[in-house]
């Protein structure tokens, strides 16, 4: 029972982190039609900046400044990199962000080295906030959850209560209206991109010290957020939320309850004593294929519901 509670907690936490990334990605995609392949790279930059800033002036200033820096870099990249490519079409934009992701990874290695950096959770937050039957839950995890919820609320208020939010909402449901926004379009694009990157930066700051801050973190997480937004339905914020939580929970459950798939494969006559690849199949457990599960879900979704859970668009 307590294992269940814990994996739900951790699953929601991971899901919240995924949503911080996928919401920014969805905003950028819906407004600009650009799939930002480098989105997870901005997440990585957030973690690295937080590491550097926190070694000098502490964690909380890093939580403020790192996302601001990442957002500024994002806006700069949009203005001087993406905008000139816009006239070549969406595939060119996607190629640009792919190259950008590659470049950011190399630059991170240039500046911070090829191995992981010791970005750690602040000392006082490592202690247990509470424990259920002997399993501790640290203050930091509670803090992460609070930050995530605060960001949900802020995002919700921004979208429903402000003028900019209403413009964004209009753009989400009717992409063609973005063009009708007048001469401000370019500025709005730049701000959207910067804002989305800053959100990724926040996720980097609060997630980097738990998941590990290393040059490969972007390429590991990046594809998963793409899975999230395809499963949720491209351009749907609600879909991104549900899919983020779903993948967060599935990942944690699969690891926590190490279910064997042997009975399933036995139905097809595949058992461990057949040897070779059959044996590999029969020995599959939910924990061993946890990294594969998001992609399996993606494939199943594509076969049975290509537009995603909440998707309305067909392209």
């Amino acid at each position, binding site marked *: 029972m307590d294992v269940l509670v814990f994996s739900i907690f951790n699953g929601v936490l991971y899901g919240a982190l995924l949503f911080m990334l996928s919401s920014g990605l969805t905003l950028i*995609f819906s407004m600009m*039609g650009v*799939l930002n392949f480098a989105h997870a790279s901005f997440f990585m930059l957030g973690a690295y900046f937080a590491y550097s800033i926190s070694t000098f002036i502490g964690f909380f200033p890093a939580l403020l400044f790192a996302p601001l820096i990442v957002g500024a870099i994002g806006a700069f990249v949009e203005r001087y*990199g993406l905008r*000139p*490519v816009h006239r*070549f079409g*969406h*595939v*060119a934009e*996607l*190629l*640009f962000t*792919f*190259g*950008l992701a*590659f*470049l950011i990874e*190399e*630059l991170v290695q*240039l*500046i*911070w*080295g*090829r*191995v992981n950096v010791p970005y750690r959770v602040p000392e006082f937050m490592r202690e247990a906030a509470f424990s259920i039957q002997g399993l501790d839950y640290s203050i930091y995890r509670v803090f992460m959850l609070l930050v995530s919820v605060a960001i949900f609320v802020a995002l919700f208020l921004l979208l429903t209560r402000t003028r900019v939010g209403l413009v964004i909402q209009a753009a989400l449901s009717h992409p063609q209206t973005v063009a009708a926004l007048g001469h401000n379009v370019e500025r709005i694009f730049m701000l959207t991109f910067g804002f989305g990157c800053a959100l990724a930066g926040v996720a980097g700051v609060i997630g980097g010290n738990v998941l590990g801050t290393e040059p490969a973190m972007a*390429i590991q997480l990046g*594809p998963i957020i*793409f*899975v999230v937004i*395809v499963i949720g339905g*491209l351009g749907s914020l609600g879909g991104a939320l549900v899919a983020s939580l779903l993948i967060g929970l599935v990942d944690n459950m699969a690891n926590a309850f190490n279910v064997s798939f042997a009975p399933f494969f036995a139905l097809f006559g595949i058992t461990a004593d057949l040897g*070779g*690849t059959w*044996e*590999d*199949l029969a020995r*599959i457990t939910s924990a*061993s*294929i946890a*990294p*594969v599960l998001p*992609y*399996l879900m*993606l*494939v199943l979704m*594509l*076969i049975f519901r*290509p537009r995603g859970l909440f998707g309305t668009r067909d*392209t």
Partner: protein
Amino acid sequence: MTRGIRLFGPWALLALLMLGLPTLFDSSFALTVLSLMGVFIIFSCAYNMLLGQGGLLSFGHAVYFGIAGYCTIHLINAVEDEAIWFPLTLLPLIGGLVGLVLGVLIGFVSTRRAGTTFAMISLGFGELFTAMTLVLLTFFNGEDGVQGNRVYEPRPLGISFGPEIEVYYLIAIWTFIATAAMYALTRTPFGRVSNAVRDNPERLEFIGYSTHRVRWLAFALSSFFAGLAGALHAINYEHVGFETVGVQTSGLVLFMTYIGGIGSFLGPIVGAVLISYLNASLSDLTEAWFLYLGLVFVLTVMFAPAGLAGLITMHEPLMRVDRSLLRRLALPYLAAIATTLLIAAGAIGLIEMVYHLTSDLAFDSKTTVFWIELDTEAPWPWIGFAVLLGAGLLAARRTYPQVSRIWDATVAEARARLLG
């Protein structure tokens, strides 16, 4: 007759080149690089069937390359164990079939969409297979990959395929066959319709074609050739690792194809040759090679979307009007190239020194940049490279606009002469 020369001339030249190259460059390193070039020429051309011909951007095409490689190695090992027998020379066909089968299955699902969605799906399948390499250990053997020994009996005409030169010729012959076949494909009804689905899929639906079918077929055929290349890759290295199915390999073939130029058949070949060579010779020399590759790719996307081949072919209309027009461009080009070299020298110097400072492998502050030994703790190398970079950037503010101004003027004049 002249038509025959124009059609077959380049191919005869290519065949001669492939036959003759090993006599010019006969070191073991050169042969390895030449073999690698052959493999990646096939792979890039196959990739360009999707990207350049069919307008489909894939981030996961290494799946068909890599899985075919794994199957090839397993087949080689099965022959070694005398479980079955199959001639090594025809193994690439098996690799191609593996690619084809996977391409037919996965292509059916993924080509229902094009554009951004297709790109994401291709990445998803790529990650799926990469993750599987750590689950299905008998087949993939995890991070170690699978080894094989390509030398087995009988040896036709005494060829054992042990020496690198014999493998080179095997790869060269298959490269010739595969590129010729892919070129032929561009001239079939399928090739035409494939271009049409790239240019305007919506319109194609209204003249009798299912865009899904066209893309699916393009995907399957491209996967066939990717698998063929993968089999040759496996034969060449006698080893297949999990990175061959992953996004690194998919990214590499994308870089080769795009930097070479997706608009022409020659582009991907140019890209494959150039980047295979640089990859082999520079990756030992500098830690920053991938940074440079990424920079070149991003700059290509931003400023030369038609790639290297495009930069050359854009001069063809001018050539046809009047060759002397090109002379006008020579000086501005030289000036622009000189400033580019200046910028590159400064930037590379700085990057190399930063890498040296942050590298864990460096024992002291001495490093070698451009064959000169420098001390990264002294200020003057930094100042020197910064000055180069600054001077280059300043000069570029004059020379780059000059190129575009004179280019525009020349094109305008060519057009005027053409029309009247």
